[in-house]
């Protein structure tokens, strides 16, 4: 499914966030950054899926699937990815329906998008609003 579609009906459950990077430390650090910037109330579930299953640089489809299941509360799962194979692996998994229902790849910059997504999801916003907030990070010009 594409970003912007609503997840399954879920009451007050929070949207889960998965951060997919080529590097495990990058995924973990961005998850930590986003969680801390969203703190102050309930924080949406965030999971990092970085690096290969062998601990190298690359992408592990197993880690992505496990992370998505871990953060799935029934309100949808928003995935952010950094480069090449991270993006392609998430898309391939979505094409084959291997991620929880209501999962979507967000079109957003990785770090800024992650912070926007976690803050918005923690406020209880639905998946479409989380996706829109993350995508808005592209509009912030730095120079």
């Amino acid at each position, binding site marked *: 499914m594409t970003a912007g579609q609503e997840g399954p009906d879920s009451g007050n459950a929070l949207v889960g966030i998965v951060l997919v990077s080529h590097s495990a430390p990058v995924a973990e650090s961005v998850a930590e950054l986003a969680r801390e910037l969203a703190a102050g109330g309930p924080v949406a579930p965030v999971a990092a899926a970085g690096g290969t299953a062998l601990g190298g640089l690359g992408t*592990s489809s197993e880690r992505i699937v496990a992370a998505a299941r871990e953060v799935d509360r029934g309100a949808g799962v928003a995935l952010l990815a950094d480069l090449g194979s991270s993006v*392609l*692996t998430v*898309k391939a998994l979505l094409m084959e329906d291997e991620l929880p229902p209501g999962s979507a790849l967000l079109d957003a910059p990785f770090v800024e998008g992650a912070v926007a997504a976690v803050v918005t999801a923690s406020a209880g916003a639905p998946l479409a609003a989380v996706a829109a907030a993350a995508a808005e990070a592209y509009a912030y010009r730095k120079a």
Partner: protein
Amino acid sequence: MRDADFFRHWMAAVAASVEREADRLTELDSPIGDADHGSNLLRGFTAVVAALGAQPPTAAPGEVLQLAGRTLISTVGGASGPLYGTLLRRTGKALGESDEVSDAELRAALAAGVDAVAQLGGAAPGDKTMLDALEPGVAALGTSYRAARVAAENGALATVPMRARKGRASYLGERSIGHQDPGATSSALLLGALADVAEPEGAR
């Protein structure tokens, strides 16, 4: 008609080709990529052969290719994993559940697989990617498997003067010109292995 063993032989032949050519694939991936294409594909197709060996022998052709694709997505670790994985899974899905498939059905299924790769990667012919070998190769299947191999090899050679528009190589801009694309090269190996299994030398 082609049965499941034909597809197992094809995957084993790809694994053997990749093993033989792994160093060259990695070498091609050094100036314009991250020098891991040969080792990534070798790990992937070695895992494919192991997974197919553990699959029930009653599996249909389509199931053989779907398992091969799923294994590539989960073991390669680089962009070629989801790309080749999607190619084989979509081809396998298109073959359905019948125990034997015709060459025409295989041709149509491969075309569906190539379309899925184009959709996944957002690339078009001329972008210096796998598609530059896969599209002419699969189109030539209408003539013969040998013609498909030649068309895919020529497609891979034709990537040399192209400027990369997708993936890591695209960051190099003009400097990607003059190098043969590693993904197009391995795609030619995939269709070359298909030709070897479908039309063995001695059989002609």
